[in-house]
């Protein structure tokens, strides 16, 4: 069973989600099955099933879209196992992400998505990815390499699948691909790769609001820490939680037009953290297709740096709104930045120096917007 949630009201639009998380690859390095002679440096993974579960948890607990409430979730995990519903603890056996299971679950998901033109279709994949030709990612199912004679039959041809989805009625479509897009040297030597399109493209090309969001650029890597959620999925969930939202008609909305940009910004910011590999997402998002309506305004991280940086040790900072102090940022000793988490708004930042070694005669106006705000305040050293 792969359908972990299904609640569809007749003639109404819904959000249908298909989630794949592959960490077990029996035919790749350290796999338990008959291994490929040349597994192209592809190993077993731990973070994709964890990330896929985290994404499913978020969808079940938080997704709110009055125009297209959650209708169904298809989940495939490798290794196969149990999924425990975060709300009521109900357990679901979840099938492995073999190509056969992917095709079967995809067909169910496609048909549901295709049922109403105002549906929202969400496709999420986390696992091994390769890319021989720019813009043509290959997503590897659990049983990739099962047959050395037909190596690519258990890899998803994402581009063809995406083009095929133009046949689907669902007006809003989102594709989240958390996988590498590298070309191992072995791939360069192969003349033609025929992977599996889950739906074949046709002449019909009717697109609505679409977001394609890749964890990384072409020829680059995507990362996750062992036994933890991947960098991309973590950023994606943070953005769905509100850091990827924008205010429209008094509501904070996560849309196809904004989500990709903010996920990219968050990952680029975390690239600066120590011992963190570089990863830059790529996205192609159009329109204002609503994915999620936030229940409250997002809490936005704020980083304030003083220039010169030495002044930080002598300062005290406060954020004001209409003359009232609403928050006091705290100094992070390792980065020497003042940090806070506040609601989106305009603030006046006041910098005091109790020992009068520096001064800042004027308050600094700060526009705090998701996904984060960084500000540098120049202060004057007093002789």
């Amino acid at each position, binding site marked *: 069973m792969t359908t972990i949630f299904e609640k569809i009201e007749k003639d109404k639009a819904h959000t249908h989600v298909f989630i794949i998380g592959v960490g077990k690859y029996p035919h790749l*390095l350290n796999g338990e099955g008959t291994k490929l002679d040349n597994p192209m440096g592809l*190993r077993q993974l731990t973070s994709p099933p964890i990330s896929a579960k985290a994404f499913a948890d978020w969808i079940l607990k938080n997704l709110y879209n009055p125009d297209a409430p959650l209708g169904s979730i298809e989940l495939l995990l490798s290794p196969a196992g149990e999924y425990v519903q975060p709300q009521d603890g109900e357990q679901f056996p979840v099938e492995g992400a073999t190509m056969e299971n992917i095709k079967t679950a995809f067909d169910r998901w496609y048909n549901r998505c295709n049922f109403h033109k105002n549906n929202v279709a969400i496709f999420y994949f986390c696992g091994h990815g390769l890319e021989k030709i720019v813009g043509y990612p290959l997503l590897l199912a659990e049983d990739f390499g099962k047959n050395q004679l037909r190596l690519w039959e258990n890899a998803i041809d994402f581009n063809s699948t995406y083009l095929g989805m133009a046949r689907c009625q669902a007006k809003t479509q989102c594709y989240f691909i958390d996988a590498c897009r590298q070309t191992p040297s072995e791939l360069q030597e192969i003349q033609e790769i025929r992977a599996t399109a889950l739906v074949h493209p046709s002449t019909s090309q009717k697109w609505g609001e679409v977001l394609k969001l890749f*964890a990384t650029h072409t020829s680059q890597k995507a990362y996750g820490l062992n036994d933890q959620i991947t960098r991309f999925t973590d950023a994606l969930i943070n953005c769905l939680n509100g850091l990827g939202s924008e205010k429209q008609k008094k509501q904070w909305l996560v849309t196809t037009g904004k989500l990709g940009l903010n996920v990219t910004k968050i990952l680029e910011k975390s690239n600066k953290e120590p011992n963190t590999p570089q990863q830059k997402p790529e996205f192609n998002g159009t329109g204002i297709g609503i994915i999620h309506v936030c229940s409250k305004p997002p809490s936005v991280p704020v980083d304030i740096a003083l220039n010169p940086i030495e002044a930080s040790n002598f300062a005290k900072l406060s954020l004001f709104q209409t003359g009232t102090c609403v928050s006091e940022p705290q100094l992070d000793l390792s980065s020497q930045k003042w940090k806070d988490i506040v609601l989106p708004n305009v603030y006046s930042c006041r910098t005091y120096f109790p020992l009068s070694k520096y001064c800042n005669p004027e308050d600094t106006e700060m526009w705090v917007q998701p996904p984060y705000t960084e500000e540098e305040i120049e202060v004057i050293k007093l002789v």
Partner: protein
Amino acid sequence: MPLIFVHGVNVRKGVSYDDDVNNRNALFQRFLLKEIVSNPQKVKILNPYWGDYGVKFAWDKKSLPQSAIEELGSEDELPLILLNQIQLEQELNSETVLLQVAKKSIADVIDLLWAVSAEGADESQAEDLADLAVRAVDYAKHNPHPDWLNNIENDDQLLRDLQEEIDNWQPQNTTSNAEDSPQWEVLGSDGNWNPISRGASRIKSTVVSWAGRPITNNIRGVLKGEVANFIGDVFVYLSKRGTQDEPGEIVKKIIATLLEAKDLINTEDDKLIVVAHSMGGNIIYDTLTHFLPDIEVDVLVTVGSQVALFEEMKLFQVSDETITAQSKVNRVSKPANVHRWINVFDFNDFLGFATESVFQGVKDFEYRTGNLLLAAHNTYFNLPTFHERLAERIRDTES
């Protein structure tokens, strides 16, 4: 703390010079320097290049029989020479050549793969290769003839299982810091073994292109070319080394590097290490004893060098004709400004000589590889097992 590497004969800047430097530096940091300092990554490694002042052949070595040198410089040269060194008994098969080597010795296949893969590797890849080499060498040391080789049918399978074995191997004399540092996994090919895969492809192509031709014919040409370069560089150095007041270009280059290294020494890192290969050993000995005798060197390592032979011929500026095997003092003292001197030689290296019979206070170590032409191709410093054994020798002399 600086380390100076003085290269030997026949080193000229070309396509592979930077690759060799990157690879050698990375291996020094992973092996030798780990035995001497607590933070090898902080050590500045200086590579004075004197090849431009070495011998130049007015007729481009036309005096050598042409058939003997026509293979020099060919792209296939390195894999062929290394394969020849391993002296396989069977005819080479492009699908199983690495397996043949591995069945003889896992250490040999690691040296072969790493030496070939080092060419074309940039600085970052050289670092990755050196990291892998630490585990690979330790694995080979503890598993010289692993059973899993019996189930392997071709080189692809060999590389696959070798990667698995080495990736999963925890070097036994190191403590794992896995808990301290984050372990990133890559959702695709992590690429760490890409240079090794490319090296393996290069070996395969070489074997395919060389099918049916005897490898050994090639070796004579390399030998002759090497001897010509060696003699040439020696003559150029001896005739142009200059005087203390007016040192020659090669000596000036080495002096400048020694002074640069001296400036880098501070109270926290107070050691200066010099590693010299082949003719580089003679040049550094001459420099430390005559041209710049005031500089203190903590560890001098001469590898495949001829310092003792030159002293036997009394070719150094400080050579004392009265000190011979028959004199009352029958050995030359180690230079006073060199605290520890280790000399590494290989019986099969026709340019490497022992020193203990001629010098007092030097420790000779034999690097027994069974390989024929290590010095000839300067591959000593591209071989992980050489660096591992050099580090062992340093450890032995300290204990």
